[in-house]
């Protein structure tokens, strides 16, 4: 056990003919942690992962695995394994040969390979399947075989390229938990890329949000969700009501903003360095808004507004209502409290909404 992080990237750059896919990305992944790179498609995350695996050479920057530079090291010489997007199990081999492939390349003798294949298959919960063909397994089982095939080599780093993308929703939910459990069981460092925020938030110790080849923010899932560093992160991770506004006044503690639609709101001043007259973008999570039947029931929240329910989107625990603000006509999405207190709301009802200034996130810019 060394203190050196398993993976260090410093100012990593990848340029293609026309554009820069990865733009000065720097990060460290500590040993044994689950690190996710979250970003919309085309943000450069696959390119970044392929550079770590060794399929693409960085144009500039440093890439260290276990403290050793990996620049110029071919993929078959790196202590890294990768689970491919479509798993890339070899269809011409059975499960045992698939899992044993890496050991055969290392020249391990047959009996040892057989023993270790059985061991690793048992660890991923598929004992005794080594004689089966790849197409005899279900999607989730193949997933586990793909992981077993990598883990048998005991890599320093396991890279996962959106491996859950091809699964159906129910299985995906299940595999999220299973992947996290497998990571815990093997204790290997996982680097996971995805465009699905819930995968990243559920499984990761740390998440990096990537956009246009740059990292917008690196932090724990909690920080990413509750303290997004940039407007992009606030908009990309989780749902949010988004307002374009202009600063009307400021005090020590708070900023007074006026939205384009014409309503005023108060937010905490330390959120952003803004002066009077500047444009700002405000993000407000649906669950940060409290509903009340009458104005008297609202206590402690300084932003109060009223509105008409335009639609109720029932989705079990994640049900929402859309309100049209009485004054400005702006739409506001509000999460229904899970206590079921407002389950009798229906279209056309008048209701009050309120939120605390600390709950909103505010960023400079006109939100173009």
């Amino acid at each position, binding site marked *: 056990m060394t203190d050196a992080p398993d993976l260090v990237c410093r100012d990593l750059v990848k340029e293609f003919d026309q554009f820069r896919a990865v733009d000065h990305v720097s990060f460290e992944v500590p040993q044994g942690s689950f690190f996710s790179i979250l970003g919309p498609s085309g943000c450069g995350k696959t390119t970044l992962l392929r550079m770590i*695996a*060794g*399929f693409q050479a960085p144009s500039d920057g440093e890439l260290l695995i276990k403290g050793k530079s990996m620049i110029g090291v*071919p*993929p*078959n*010489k790196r202590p*890294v*394994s*990768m689970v*491919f*997007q*479509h798993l*890339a199990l*070899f*269809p*011409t*081999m059975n499960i045992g040969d698939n899992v044993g*492939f*890496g050991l*055969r*390349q*290392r020249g391990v003798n047959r009996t040892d390979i057989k023993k270790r294949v059985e061991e690793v298959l048992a660890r991923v919960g598929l004992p005794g399947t080594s004689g089966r063909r790849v197409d005899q397994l279900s999607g989730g089982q193949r997933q586990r075989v793909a992981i077993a*095939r*990598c883990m048998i*080599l005991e890599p320093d780093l396991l890279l996962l390229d959106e491996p859950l993308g091809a699964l159906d929703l129910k299985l995906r939910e299940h595999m999220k938990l299973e992947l996290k459990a497998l990571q815990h069981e093997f204790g290997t460092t996982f680097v996971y890329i995805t465009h699905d925020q819930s995968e990243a938030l559920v499984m990761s110790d740390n998440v990096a949000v990537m956009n246009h080849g740059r990292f917008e923010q690196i932090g724990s899932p909690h920080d990413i969700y509750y303290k997004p560093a940039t407007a992009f992160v606030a908009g990309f991770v989780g749902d949010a009501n988004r307002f374009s506004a202009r600063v009307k006044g400021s005090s020590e503690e708070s900023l007074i903003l006026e939205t384009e639609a014409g309503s005023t709101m108060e937010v905490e001043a330390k959120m952003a360095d803004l002066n009077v007259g500047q444009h700002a973008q405000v993000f407000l999570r649906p669950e940060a808004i409290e509903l009340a039947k009458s104005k008297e029931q609202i206590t402690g929240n300084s932003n109060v507004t009223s509105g008409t329910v335009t639609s109720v989107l029932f989705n079990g625990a994640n049900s929402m209502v859309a309100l049209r603000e009485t004054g400005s006509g702006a739409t506001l999405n509000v999460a229904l409290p899970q206590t079921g207190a407002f389950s009798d709301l229906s279209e056309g009802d008048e209701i009050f909404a309120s939120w605390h200034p600390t709950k909103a996130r505010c960023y400079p810019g006109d939100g173009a």
Partner: protein
Amino acid sequence: MSRDASKLGFYLLLAPLLLWLVLLIILPHIGLFVVSVSEKVGVREYEIGLGNYAAFFTEPLYWRTFARTAIMSILATGLTLILGFPIAYYIAKLTKGRTKTTLFLMCMIPFWVSELVRTYGWMILLRESGVFSSFLQYVGLASGPVEMLYNDAAIMVGLVYTSILFMVVPLVTTLDSLDDSLIEAGYDLGGSSFSILREIVIPHAMPGIVSGCIVVFMLSLGNYLTPILLGGKDSLWFTGMIYTQFITRFNWELGSAFGFLLLALSSVLVFVGLKLSRQSLSGTMGR
């Protein structure tokens, strides 16, 4: 009504194939078989018997030529595979778009010319007064004219050249369908280029390899023009022997027996090849 019409359409579409099979393949073969089991006992007098087949086994020249044809064809098939595989791999995996189409087309262009013309092309290159011989004399590597025609190597060159397209096409098709991520996964798991070729690429390409080999083997075995023109009168190719029996010696009975032996030989070798490579005929040809 509509059912009758569709039935009629089905038979109309099937008719050319059936006519071709029955009139040009099955009927002549039945005729040939009848001729091959007739023994001439006097002028226009024939008896049914296996004497023609016995003649083949008792005369060493016949079955040695037969064996030689088979071995040379197998060799030619192997060489074609060794030469064709890298070409197909390059076209299928290492090129894209326009370059791919161009390269594929370049493989095909020689086949727009008749086989006879192509074979004469090789004769112009290889003969005593030909291009290679003159060049060797010009650079001083040979003191006199060099004859490169009329030997087994020349036959081999001709056979490989004539049939390489039929190897490259099925190989490109199967290699095209190999997912690049499988090759990447192989490297990622520590495989060397050689072990990836052996464990991933070749097993995947096996149907293409086998179907290419079957076609090339059949073409070589049944080739007449190339061995005769490039091998000269000593070429001793079994098809040449059949030709001699029919045309020169007017011994249709023995010629027919030879024809059937060649058919049996190719069928047996293809069957053995399929068994050895653990492929099925429908699996390789049905693609």
